[in-house]
């Protein structure tokens, strides 16, 4: 390979993980990490959790500190937006005109918050949460006694609601769907999460649309489709994210709901890879169904995997999707794709935890989900069972004395 080197667009979890892995795997040529933020790569999950908590000023949780970037000889091009990929010349062009040549390119451009398109909604009246700067802005609004409206009862919205309640704000969550956590989480868990929020004093308005938002002298007014009016001090929208595919589309790569890659995480151009929130990949464990994930572990593992394949490993990406969320003292976790299941079996745990197995038509374990103190071990064991593509008896799974580890050993 010539010495143009490896270029990564996007300095988030995926890009950082890829850059580190390239070095760990022995790549000695140039690595360039291009990021449009001004901070070195940092973790996003704390932005809706610890970064909003009471106490000392929140600092970014760096994934790769500037010093580490230097030690690993990774060229970190900050506050730089890649605007064009010239695939014939193997060149990435930045907004300031600078050109960076690549041998292999990784698109790790992530996703951006979906915008509310409503009369009166704009970025000054409605906040969003994706970057550390967003978190700082939100944090400054969360003074005790203030009224916060959260639009969208997905993970980010609910985590913000929990953090805001803990800071003494009054919180109302508006959700157009008829339940919270519509995607990827079974009803039993969504109900437990909702109950905990209600116990903490969060108001929910489910199944309601929003008509318009007006702001005047620091106060915001939200008019609901049912005519009701809400007044508040701050509004945050957590209504999903859109994959950043514009660069890929503009240079003619295949794009759908995410940059389309094969099971090696390569795009339709074999010298360009994509990983993390921005890409949709076929998952071997789920019959090759194309999925796009917005999850921390997928970003980390996808970045590392793409890096190894860029160096010639040629391995399929088969990491099982895994997601966690922290709200109040509760942690919930989901392993696999519950949406790929047709039968849910509840596991009886000794503590107060809730735990579900999700089986497909053939009683193969497709996913498991849980909330409570003791679930992490079980989720990990369930992951191993999913990897084994274990076919399981729902009656055995429901038995109170079931020991998952023993079951796993029996199957090996």
């Amino acid at each position, binding site marked *: 390979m010539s010495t143009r080197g490896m270029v990564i667009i996007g300095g988030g979890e995926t890009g950082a993980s890829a850059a580190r892995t390239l070095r760990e795997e022995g790549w000695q040529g140039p690595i360039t990490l291009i990021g449009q933020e001004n901070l070195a790569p940092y973790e996003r999950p704390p932005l809706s959790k610890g970064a909003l908590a009471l106490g000392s000023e929140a600092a970014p949780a760096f994934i790769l500190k500037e010093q580490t970037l230097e030690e690993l000889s990774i060229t970190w091009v900050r506050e730089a937006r890649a605007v064009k990929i010239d695939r014939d010349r193997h060149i990435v062009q930045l907004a300031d005109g600078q050109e960076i040549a690549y041998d292999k390119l990784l698109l790790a451009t992530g996703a951006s918050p979906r915008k509310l398109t409503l009369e009166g909604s704009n970025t000054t009246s409605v906040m969003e949460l994706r970057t550390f700067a967003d978190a700082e802005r939100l944090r400054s609004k969360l003074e005790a006694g203030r009224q916060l409206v959260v639009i969208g009862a997905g993970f980010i919205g609910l985590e913000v609601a929990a953090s805001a309640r803990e800071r003494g704000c009054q919180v109302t969550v508006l959700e157009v769907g008829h339940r919270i956590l519509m995607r990827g989480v079974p009803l039993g868990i969504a109900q437990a999460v909702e109950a905990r929020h209600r116990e903490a004093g969060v108001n929910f308005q489910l199944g309601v649309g929003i008509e318009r938002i007006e702001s005047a002298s620091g106060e915001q007014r939200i008019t609901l489709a049912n005519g009701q009016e809400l007044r508040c001090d701050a509004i945050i929208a957590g209504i999903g994210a859109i994959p950043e595919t514009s660069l890929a589309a503009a240079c003619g790569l295949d794009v759908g709901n995410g940059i389309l890659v094969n099971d090696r995480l390569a795009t339709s151009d074999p010298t360009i890879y994509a990983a993390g929130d921005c890409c949709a990949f076929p998952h071997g464990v789920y019959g090759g169904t194309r999925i796009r994930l917005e999850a921390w*572990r997928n970003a980390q593992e996808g970045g590392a995997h793409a890096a190894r394949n860029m160096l010639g490993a040629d391995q399929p990406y088969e990491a099982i999707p895994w997601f966690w969320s922290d709200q109040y003292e509760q942690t919930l976790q989901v392993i696999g794709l519950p949406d790929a299941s047709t039968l849910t079996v509840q596991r009886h745990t000794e503590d107060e935890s809730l735990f579900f197995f999700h089986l497909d038509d053939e009683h193969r374990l497709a996913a498991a989900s849980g909330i409570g103190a003791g679930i*992490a071990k079980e989720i*990990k*064991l369930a992951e191993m069972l999913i990897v084994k593509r274990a076919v399981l008896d729902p009656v055995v799974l429901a038995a109170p004395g079931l020991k998952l580890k023993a079951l796993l050993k029996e199957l090996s």
Partner: protein
Amino acid sequence: MLLEGWIYVCEADAIDEEDVIRFDSGSRSFAIYRSEDNDYYATDGFCTHEKVHLAEGLVMGDIIECPKHNGRFNYKTGQAKKTPACEHLTTYPVQVTDDGKVYIQID
């Protein structure tokens, strides 16, 4: 007879084979392990990456996997084995008495 400085943790059979429990003493938290071949070990209770109780993680062979980000440690030596866990864990001596009681020495 146990020497001074040993603290009672639990009955030996209170920990399953190839498993871990949490043990708090004063303001400190420990993780107490029983290996597949019935030896007992103790480490700091918290993952060195972020403050998460390791006892909520999974023991496989010599490894404890952190429940939060899947960092791994060898719980027998305390060695960090997989990122994002990079700093090692402190280990502590464990004794199981003839009458089946687990003690650790933490100072």
